[in-house]
C-alpha cells in the first residue's frame, strides 16, 4: 500500500501537529506542581506563536489547492487564511485572559489546553471537506466550548450557561446530521464537492432542497449564532467567563462561517444552482439583523449586549451568501479580520471593567470615562467601529460586504441592503448608549484595587490603534490578500 499521502499530509499540517503536541505537553507539565502558572501560560503562548509562524511561512509561499488525507481536508489559501486568523484570535485571547485566569482557584490548565484544542477544532472546521469532518470538528469545537463556558463551575451563571449551551448545541448538531443524511442518501457520498457534482446532474424537487438546507443550516447557524438558532447566545455570553465569551464571539462564530462557505461552495457551488438557496440566507440574515439590533436596544448588561451585537453582525456577514462570488467571500474574510479586531478589543475593555472596577452593565458605568479615560476612549473607538462609522475600520468592512452584495441589483438584494443600512443606524443607539453613559452621565466614584495590568492595556491599545490605522492607511493589500484567499 502506498502511504505517501500520510507523509504529505503530516508535512503540511505542522501547525496542527505542534498544537496537538503542545497541548499534551502543557497537560503533562501541569502535573509538576513546582512549575508556575506563568510558565505554563508562556508555553501555551509559545505554541501558538510557533504555529502562527509556520502558518505565516506557508501562507506566503503557497498557492494552489491540495486535498489531504484522502479528501478529508482541503489545503488551500482559504484554509491557511483561517488557520492564521484562528491562531491569532486564540493568541490574543490567551494573552488578555491571563490576568483573569491566573487568580482562578482551579481551571487554569484546563483553560489553556481547551483553548488550544478548540483552536485546533476551528482550524479543521475551516478546512473540512466531508460531512464527517464537518460534524466531527463542529462537535470538537462545541464540546470544548461547553466545557470552557462552565469553567467557573462554582459560579451558578457559568455552569448554567454551559448547560444551556450543550442543550442547544447537541440538539442542533443532531438536526444538521439528519439533513446531511438526506444528501448522503441521494448522492452516496459524504464529500461536499462530490455531492455537489452529483446533485447538479439530478433533477430533485425544490422541496427536498428546502427541507434539507433548513435542517443542515441548524447546525451551522447555531455556531454562527444567526437567527433562529441564536437563543443560546445571550445566556451563554453572559454566563461564561468573560475571556471565554470574547473567544466565543469571534473564533467559533467565524469558524462556522468558514465551514458554511466551504459547504455551500461544495454543495451548491458558485453560479447557478438547481435550487435558489440564497432565499434562505436572505431570510436568516434579515432576521438576524433585525432581531439582533432591536433586542440589543433593551440590554443593560454589557456582555448580553455584545451577544446581540454579535447576532446582528452575523446577519451582516451572512449577507455575502446572497451573491456568493469570489468578491463577496473575500469581503467576508476581510470582515472577519476586522470584526475579530474590534470585538476582541471591546471584550478586553469589558474584562477590565469587570475585573478592576466591578462594572458589568451600562448603568453602573455612568461617568466612568473620568476615572479611566484611556479605556473609555478605546472602548469608544471599538463601539464606533462596530457601528461602522468612519474613520474606523468597521466602516470599510461593512461597506465591502454591502458593495459585494449589491452588484447584481435586484429587489431582493436591495431589500436586504436596505434592512442592513437601517439596522446600522439603529445599532448606533445601543453602542452610543455605552459611550454616552461613560462620557455624558454623572457617576459615582470608581475605586481601583490594583493597577490595570499591562497585559490587558497593551493589546487593547494596539487593537484600538489597528482599528483606526486600517482605515487611514491603504488597506488594499489586506483586502487583496483576503480576496486571493477566498474560495
Amino acid at each position, binding site marked *: 500500500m502506498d502511504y505517501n499521502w500520510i507523509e504529505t499530509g503530516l508535512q503540511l499540517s505542522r501547525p496542527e501537529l505542534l498544537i496537538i503536541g503542545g497541548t499534551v505537553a502543557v497537560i503533562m507539565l501541569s502535573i509538576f506542581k513546582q512549575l508556575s502558572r506563568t510558565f505554563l501560560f508562556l508555553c501555551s503562548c509559545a505554541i501558538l506563536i510557533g504555529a502562527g509562524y509556520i502558518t505565516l511561512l506557508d501562507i506566503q509561499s503557497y498557492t494552489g489547492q491540495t486535498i489531504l488525507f484522502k479528501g478529508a481536508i482541503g489545503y488551500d489559501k482559504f484554509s491557511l487564511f483561517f488557520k492564521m486568523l484562528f491562531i491569532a484570535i486564540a493568541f490574543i485571547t490567551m494573552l488578555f485572559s491571563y490576568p483573569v485566569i491566573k487568580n482562578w482557584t482551579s481551571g487554569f490548565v484546563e483553560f489553556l489546553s481547551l483553548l488550544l484544542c478548540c483552536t485546533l477544532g476551528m482550524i479543521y472546521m475551516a478546512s473540512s471537506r466531508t460531512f464527517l469532518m464537518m460534524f*466531527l470538528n463542529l462537535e470538537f469545537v462545541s464540546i470544548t466550548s461547553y466545557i470552557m463556558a462552565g469553567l467557573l463551575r462554582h459560579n451558578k451563571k457559568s455552569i448554567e450557561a454551559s448547560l444551556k449551551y450543550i442543550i442547544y448545541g447537541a440538539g442542533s448538531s443532531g438536526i444538521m446530521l439528519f439533513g446531511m443524511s438526506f444528501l448522503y442518501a441521494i448522492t452516496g457520498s459524504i464529500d461536499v464537492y462530490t455531492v455537489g457534482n452529483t446533485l447538479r446532474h439530478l433533477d430533485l424537487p425544490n422541496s427536498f432542497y428546502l427541507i434539507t438546507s433548513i435542517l443542515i443550516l441548524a447546525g451551522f447557524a447555531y455556531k454562527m449564532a444567526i437567527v433562529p438558532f441564536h437563543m443560546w447566545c445571550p445566556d451563554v455570553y453572559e454566563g461564561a467567563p468573560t475571556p471565554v465569551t470574547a473567544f466565543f464571539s469571534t473564533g467559533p462564530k467565524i469558524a462556522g462561517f468558514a465551514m458554511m462557505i466551504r459547504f455551500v461552495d461544495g454543495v451548491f457551488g458558485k453560479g447557478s444552482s438547481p435550487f435558489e438557496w440564497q432565499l434562505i440566507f436572505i431570510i436568516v440574515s434579515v432576521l438576524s439583523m433585525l432581531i439582533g439590533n432591536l433586542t440589543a436596544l433593551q440590554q443593560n448588561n454589557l456582555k448580553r449586549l455584545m451577544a446581540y451585537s454579535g447576532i446582528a453582525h452575523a446577519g451582516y456577514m451572512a449577507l455575502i451568501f446572497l451573491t456568493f462570488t469570489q468578491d463577496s467571500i473575500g469581503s467576508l474574510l476581510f470582515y472577519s479580520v476586522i470584526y475579530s479586531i474590534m470585538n476582541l478589543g471591546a471584550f478586553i475593555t469589558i474584562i477590565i471593567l469587570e475585573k478592576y472596577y466591578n462594572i458589568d452593565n451600562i448603568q453602573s458605568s455612568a461617568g466612568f470615562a473620568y476615572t479611566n479615560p484611556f479605556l473609555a476612549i478605546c472602548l469608544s473607538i471599538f463601539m464606533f467601529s462596530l457601528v461602522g462609522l468612519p474613520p474606523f475600520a468597521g466602516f470599510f468592512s461593512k461597506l465591502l460586504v454591502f458593495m459585494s452584495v449589491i452588484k447584481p441589483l435586484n429587489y431582493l438584494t436591495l431589500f436586504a441592503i436596505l434592512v442592513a443600512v437601517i439596522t446600522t443606524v439603529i445599532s448606533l443607539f445601543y453602542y452610543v448608549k455605552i459611550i454616552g453613559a461613560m462620557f455624558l452621565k454623572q457617576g459615582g466614584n470608581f475605586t481601583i484595587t490594583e493597577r490595570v495590568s499591562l497585559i490587558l492595556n497593551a493589546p487593547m491599545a494596539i487593537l484600538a490603534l489597528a482599528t483606526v490605522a486600517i482605515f487611514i492607511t491603504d488597506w488594499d493589500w489586506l483586502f487583496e490578500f483576503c480576496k486571493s484567499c477566498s474560495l
Partner: protein
Amino acid sequence: MSLNEILLNIIFYALALTGLFSSFMVATSTNMVRTAFSLLGVLFSFAGLYGLLRADFLFAAQILVYVGGILVLIIFAIMLTHKIANVNLSNESTSSSTVIAVVCILFAVLVFIALTLPEYIKINQRNKPLTEMIGNNLLSDSLLPFEILSVLLLACLIGAVYLARKEVKE
C-alpha cells in the same frame, strides 16, 4: 417468500415497532426510571436493526458503547441527581399544543421526504461483510477524523473530570 424471509420480516417489524414505542415512551413517560428503560429499549431495537441491515460492527458498537456506556452514564446521572429513595421519580414536561403541532408538521414533512426520496436513489444492497472495510477505512479515508477524535476525547476527558470532580479542599 421463503420462511426465512417471513421470519426476518417479522423480526424487522417487531424491532421497528419496539423502537417506535420505546421512543414514544421516552418522549412522554412521566417516570424518570421508566424513561431511562425505554431508552434502553430504543437502543436495543436499533442495534437489532443495524444487525438486520448487515452492519455487524455497528450492531456491536451500539450495544457496547450506547447500552454499555451512555445508558449506564445516564442512569448514574439520574441516581446522582435525584433522591433515589423516592420511588416516584417524576419527569415533568412542559408540553403545549404549539409544540405538538410543530413536531407533527416536522414529522409530516419528513415522511413526505421519506416517501419521495427512494424515487431518486438506486437501491442495491451490499453483500460484503463490513468489519474489515471499516478497519481499512479507519486507516485510510477516515484516518484524520480518527486521530482528531482521539484529541477530542482527550479534551473531553479533561473537561468532564474537571467539571464533575469534587472540590479539593486545601
